[in-house]
């Protein structure tokens, strides 16, 4: 079979299918991972003792557990106690937990850097703590956390390939299947690599655009 035909008839259609799954994984995990990160960070910073403890425990275990192991537990382990997820759902849950736990640390760090006076002034105007956190502290913290968060989004793109280990045929998996079947390891994995590079580039550009759009003159000194 000639190279062109292999590329157009076999490799690209397979990678396209895989890419669609990868995008679904990422686009489902990233927003919830962000929300979880914000929730856990706020819980640790402003929650009561129980909330603080629970958030800490979650972050501790997720950070301490290899993501692959987490996926194995979610997909292979939980059915033994009657909780059955599809491989895709288990992957998304795993990614949300992982992404959220790491995001929370960036956001918490950024919240700590917001000056006390911001909260004091908000409360002096009659805002509840929750209102003050939502309208004053978080908007500043998230701006400061953006560079760190963009790292996590890029990790997410790349570790989404772990879903293949629990049978989700995403981009890497699709490439692996083609490569093994046609003995075209080099070409195939290079093509897969280019797609990931493209996704990461896109993300970097998007984050740059977001940073620029929400930049506040003088708030974050370079």
């Amino acid at each position: 079979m000639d190279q062109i035909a292999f590329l157009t008839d076999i490799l690209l259609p397979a990678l396209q299918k895989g890419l669609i799954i990868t995008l679904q994984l990422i686009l489902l995990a990233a927003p919830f991972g962000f929300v979880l990160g914000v929730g856990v960070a706020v819980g640790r910073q402003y929650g009561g003792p129980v909330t603080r403890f629970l958030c800490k425990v979650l972050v501790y275990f997720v950070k301490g557990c290899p993501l692959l192991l987490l996926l194995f537990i979610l997909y292979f382990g939980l059915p033994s106690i009657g909780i059955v997820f599809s491989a895709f759902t288990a992957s998304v849950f795993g990614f949300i937990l992982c992404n959220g736990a790491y995001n929370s640390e960036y956001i918490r760090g950024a919240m700590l850097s917001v000056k006390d006076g911001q909260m004091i002034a908000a409360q002096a105007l009659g805002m509840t703590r929750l209102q003050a956190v939502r309208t004053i502290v978080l908007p500043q913290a998230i701006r400061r956390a953006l560079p760190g968060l963009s790292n996590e989004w890029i990790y997410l793109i790349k570790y989404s390939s772990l879903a293949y280990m629990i049978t989700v045929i995403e981009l890497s998996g699709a490439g692996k299947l083609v490569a093994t079947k046609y003995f075209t390891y080099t070409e195939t994995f290079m093509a897969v690599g280019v797609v990931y590079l493209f996704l990461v580039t896109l993300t970097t550009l998007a984050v740059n655009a977001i940073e620029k759009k929400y930049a506040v003159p003088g708030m974050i000194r370079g």
Partner: protein
Amino acid sequence: MHTDEYILKVEDIHKAFGANEVLRGVSFEVKKGETLVFIGSSGTGKSTLLRCINQLTPPDRGRVWLHGEEVTNSGKRINYFRQRIGMVFQNFFLFDHLTALKNVEVALIRVKGMSKEEAREKALAELRQVGMEDWAGHYPAELSGGQAQRVSIARALAMDPDVILFDEPTSALDPELTREVLEVMRTLAQQGMTMLVVTHEMGFACNVANRILFMEHGVIAEQGAPGVLLNDPQYSRVKNFIGQFLEYNGD
């Protein structure tokens, strides 16, 4: 502007930080339209007193009343009282991520539940009042200290408070910027705003205050109208205190 109705009553406020007793029983009453100026050396509890009034620092003992309603021990209703008691801080504490206009708007929308249009109109009017309308679109980092403080006064005014607490509003400013802020405050006083001002600006105290309260060691040591305090020989301590400033300033 003056009525006999007390709008704010402060009763026997005590506050200690660890072993350090900052306030040792402070009581006073404020009538509508009055300007009270608190003076005294640093560390005599003036700023803590202001923060005890709106419960940013809860006092250990004593009570605060606004229009006959208890502000202390008010639970969640404290947020209502804080809308009625404005506060202006030494370091402005403008919200760093919001423009001057949005700094004034944000609580109108979030706390008072105004529509965006209504809040914008009100915020612009308050900025106009402090001479900052042209700077509405600028962020705090783009403003001078005096401008930032005027925006923070507009932010407090926008809530239509019954009383505004000024916690050393000019202490972070150079003399020129101090003047522009004091001008705004003087105008407010003349318009009948009820104000409690902690300051080291003796000129302002003597010219604008209805009453000067001289604090020493956590209590109000002497108080009275400026003319009385300065001329009546029975008030020696406050006169000495002010005298130091005048000597130092060379006039």
